[in-house]
């Protein structure tokens, strides 16, 4: 359909002036767009002033016609007013209060974005968009730019679906209302960045899940999402020490990863989840099942031709199973293999894997009353630990480092060498303090032993301090380990009783 171009409005006073001054020439009709009428009036005038027959008749016709045109001009101008009113957009009466609220929200959004508090920024931009929809009730530049802000915040918050939807809507509104080119560029760039981020995120997800690269974002998205959800849930269940649930969810994750890895169900993702599944089974004391899972895991590693770094985890767990079942010889062989693998992988350097391998073997020796061998292995682990990046940098596996120090210290404790144990416990606590503000079960164990040392040395106040810290840390980190909580409480009660007895004795025998 062809849309006629709008006519320029005619000025009312000029139309009336032309009727009065040049009406007999038809000027007012020409001015108001009635060209035929104007020409007819001009013709009547020309014929009327000439000496042609019927001149009088023409003039006689023109007179009443001009009188009639008073009414005609009035009607014509009135119609023009009505049509102008219909064409002119309705006057916008915006809710000023809502607009000022939007400004305040925008300021808070900018502050949140500057602080990289994207959760807050998303929440605020959602309100801004809702506000803009309410105020403008339709496509508007303000709404488009609010959607753009929301999209950018969502992108930073990794809520990619919402980011993309918002930016696409912003772009659509921009096109509809003819938004300035520079604003359109901003929206287009934000959308391009979001699409790129979605691609990167998808690639990272696949890498994290141990899936083969090269699948498009549309492939297996549902299964990948399901696998991530299952992984998150089994890890959360494990953290809650709900081992039965963790095992069940992990078994589901193994199944999902097999589906994702396609034919034969062989892939790194399967290996990763099998390792966790075996670990949960081990902790549930389902040793046979754990062993069969680990055997399968090692077989897949062989089939896929993965390097030794993949064998370290399952070999360790298998060794733990042997050690737990009293097959210390088999465990020792496996631990020695893991040491060899770790050393080979590190190419002679010190790494966390090497430290872990020595620590595990040392722990086995310590638990089988081979203290000298244990001490030797711990000493080797300590040499590697000292060669790692300084602990102050916070690099490496802080839990592993603290566990090694605590294990070694406990070996000294078992041999009544408190003077050797104490600095190791204190170093472990310093590591834990840096990595997690000392809020861990390892730190609880270190405080407990330091409390015992202080108690033995007669420093009851220091002992009480350590035992109280042990109790609090266990309450925070392992709230369902009632045995540990009861032990810590018993230590506190014993030391408190001893302190009360000392205070009572001091009152009974005042110093002279």
């Amino acid at each position, binding site marked *: 359909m062809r849309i006629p171009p709008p006519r320029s409005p005619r000025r009312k006073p000029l139309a009336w002036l032309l009727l009065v001054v040049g009406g007999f020439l038809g000027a007012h009709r020409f001015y108001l767009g009635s060209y035929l009428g104007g020409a007819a009036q001009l013709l009547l005038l020309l014929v009327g002033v000439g000496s042609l027959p019927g001149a009088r008749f023409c003039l006689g016709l023109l007179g009443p016609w001009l009188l009639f045109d008073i009414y005609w001009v009035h009607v014509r101008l009135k119609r023009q007013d009505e049509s102008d009113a219909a064409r002119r957009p309705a006057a916008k009466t915006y809710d000023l209060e809502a607009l000022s609220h939007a400004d305040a929200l925008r300021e808070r959004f900018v502050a949140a974005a500057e602080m990289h508090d994207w959760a*807050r920024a998303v929440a605020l931009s959602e309100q801004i968009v809702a506000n803009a929809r309410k105020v403008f009730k339709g496509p508007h530049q303000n709404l488009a730019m609010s959607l753009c802000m929301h999209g950018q915040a969502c992108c930073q918050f990794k809520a990619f679906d919402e980011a993309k939807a918002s930016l696409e809507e912003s772009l659509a509104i921009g096109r509809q209302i003819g938004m300035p080119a520079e604003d359109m560029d901003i929206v287009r760039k934000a959308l391009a960045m979001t699409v790129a981020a979605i691609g990167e995120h998808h690639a990272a997800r696949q890498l994290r899940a141990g899936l083969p690269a090269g699948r498009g974002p549309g492939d297996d998205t549902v299964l990948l999402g399901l696998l991530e959800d299952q992984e998150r849930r089994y890890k959360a269940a494990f953290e809650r020490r709900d081992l039965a649930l963790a095992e069940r969810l992990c078994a589901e994750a193994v199944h999902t990863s097999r589906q994702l890895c396609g034919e034969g169900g062989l892939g790194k993702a399967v290996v990763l989840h099998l390792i966790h599944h075996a670990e949960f089974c081990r902790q549930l004391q389902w040793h046979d099942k754990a062993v069969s899972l680990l055997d399968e895991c090692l077989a897949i590693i062989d089939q896929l031709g993965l390097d030794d770094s993949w064998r370290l985890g399952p070999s360790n767990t298998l060794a733990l199973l042997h050690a737990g079942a009293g097959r210390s010889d088999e465990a020792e062989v496996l631990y020695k293999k893991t040491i060899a693998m770790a050393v080979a992988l590190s190419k002679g350097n010190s790494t966390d894997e090497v430290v872990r391998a020595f620590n595990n073997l040392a722990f086995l020796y310590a638990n089988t009353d081979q203290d000298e061998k244990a001490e030797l292995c711990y000493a080797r682990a300590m040499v590697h630990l000292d060669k790692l990046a300084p602990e102050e940098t916070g690099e490496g596996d802080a839990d592993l480092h603290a566990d090694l120090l605590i294990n070694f210290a406990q070996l000294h404790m078992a041999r009544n060498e408190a003077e050797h144990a104490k600095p190791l416990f204190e170093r472990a606590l310093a590591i834990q303090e840096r990595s997690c503000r000392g809020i861990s079960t390892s730190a609880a164990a270190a405080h407990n032993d330091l409390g015992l040392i202080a108690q033995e040395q007669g420093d009851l106040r220091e002992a009480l301090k350590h035992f109280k810290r042990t109790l609090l840390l266990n309450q925070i980190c392992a709230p369902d380990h009632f045995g540990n909580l009861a032990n810590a409480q018993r230590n506190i009660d014993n030391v408190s009783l001893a302190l009360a007895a000392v205070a009572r004795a001091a009152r009974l025998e005042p110093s002279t």
Partner: protein
Amino acid sequence: MSIGGAFYAFDRYRLRGLVIDPSSVSGFLFHTPEDKGGPHASQTVEQAWDVVRALLPEAVDGEALEGTEALGCIYLTASHVERAAARLARRSVPELVARFTGEPAQFAELYWAKTWQGGAEELAGFMEGVKRFFAEAAARRDAVVFYIV
């Protein structure tokens, strides 16, 4: 602007993360929905936080947490919550409120003391709410945070 306080109950295994990173407390309390592991329940005490703290010390018998965005923050582990709930169950709110309104001079230093002496009924409502809140949190073995802003 006045200062208000509220109790929040949440999964006991979430507490460790909050104690390690106190700056995350406000985000967790106010922007984490329950289905994403956010708080299970809350009980506001509004501007009566100081009065409630003085009359029901068991409810705040936990550990102070520094480094949050709050004016004051105290956390209670699941063990603390169980103990607090047992002690709170033995307290009589009408008696406490009667003592608070009957001896105004003794509590004059508390924040908005006069206001709550005039609005004892609302105060009693808050305190009963706190008792109920702790009983429910203890049944779930939740941890609790008392947050003053």
